[in-house]
């Protein structure tokens, strides 16, 4: 529980148009719709993501007791990924190719057939592999509309914003430089800011530090 104990890194968002979910039931329904499901290796996938409960990332059954700590709603974004060490895959493919060559009495194998075997072996190994599980805490303060994802990874954050909007019917404004500016400035001021130029603080000639605006 990184956000309660010790030091943590996170990305804050502001819910757009509302501070909390429409109802507890709607949030539970959305979390269930977007919950983590097993990786579908048969479809060639090696990754899956979805929501899981806050206290136990392996649990994807949501209840009021597990999610709501008024005024907070808490859950996890979980991302599972299967990966195979390259050397392991190469050795297994080499063995399978040798077997196929021996069985057919050939010395050479066309590239396409070799690639087909490689994909087949990869699928078989992935089905036997255990995924790496990463769970990132999500804390939604429903009194302020502030949502915090306890990850600063760009990829994780992009996945989170999409999953959140698709399943919880809420757009998220990141509270980064642009988000803060857009939250506080009028359109005309924003226009000015987007056209600003960098300031030089150090004077190359004494008294010659300049604000940049003169450069335009």
């Amino acid at each position, binding site marked *: 529980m990184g956000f309660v104990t010790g*030091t943590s890194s996170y990305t804050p968002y502001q819910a757009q148009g509302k501070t909390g979910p429409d109802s507890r039931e709607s949030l539970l329904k959305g979390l269930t719709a977007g919950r983590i499901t097993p990786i579908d290796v048969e479809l060639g996938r090696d990754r899956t993501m979805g929501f899981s409960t806050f206290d136990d990332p392996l649990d994807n059954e949501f209840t009021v007791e597990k999610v709501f700590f008024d005024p907070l709603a808490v859950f996890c974004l979980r991302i599972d990924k299967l990966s195979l060490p390259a050397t392991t895959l190469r050795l297994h493919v080499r063995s399978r190719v040798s077997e196929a060559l021996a069985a057919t009495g050939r010395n050479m194998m066309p590239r396409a057939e070799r690639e087909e075997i490689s994909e087949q072996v990869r699928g078989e190994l992935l089905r036997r592999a255990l995924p790496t599980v990463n769970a990132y805490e999500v804390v939604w303060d429903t009194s302020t509309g502030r949502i915090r994802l306890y990850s600063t990874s760009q990829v994780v954050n992009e996945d989170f914003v999409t999953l959140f909007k698709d399943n919880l019917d809420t757009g998220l404004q990141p509270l980064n430089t642009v988000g803060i500016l857009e939250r*506080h400035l009028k359109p005309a001021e924003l226009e000015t800011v987007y056209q600003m130029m960098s300031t030089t*603080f150090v004077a190359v*000639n004494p008294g010659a*530090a300049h604000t940049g605006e003169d450069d335009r």
Partner: protein
Amino acid sequence: MIGLTMVDKMKRTQFLGREFLTWMLFKAATEEGVFRLDEDGEVQMLFERAVTLEGDNPAREMSTIKVDDPTDSAEVMLSLRLGKKVSKARLLLESEGKEFAFTLDAASLALRSVTLPDSMAMDHTEVMAEKADFATELEETLQKLFMGFIGLRLNLDAWSLEVSKMAKWIGPWGKE
């Protein structure tokens, strides 16, 4: 501005975060980092241990300096004189007797390694709510400081005066 993507907007505003952190370093060095937040009173922002400074080409001109007090460091001042600006800093915010420690990344104003004040609540649910309140307080205070800086930045006369003060504090280009 019509037609700007989020990536465009981020690129166009990245320098503002560096200017903001450099301005806060100036304030910390010359005014003990005390900032007035309108009706919300004062806060103090202190620079701790590590600052990273970047020039116009971060790939070639980046230095991370670890000193006890970055506001009193010859190495930091030399980097500023070479035209670099603060791109990342470990900060300590003191507000109404509470301390918030965090690293601020200028490029996006991202918060990293945040340590919030200890909670005095006994109940687990109350601790969670209090920690969330502390996080909101930190974020809102930072937004106020940043928007105060943007207000200054939008006022050309006031900004010009501030820049001349900062130039005087930094000293002439390249001088050790």
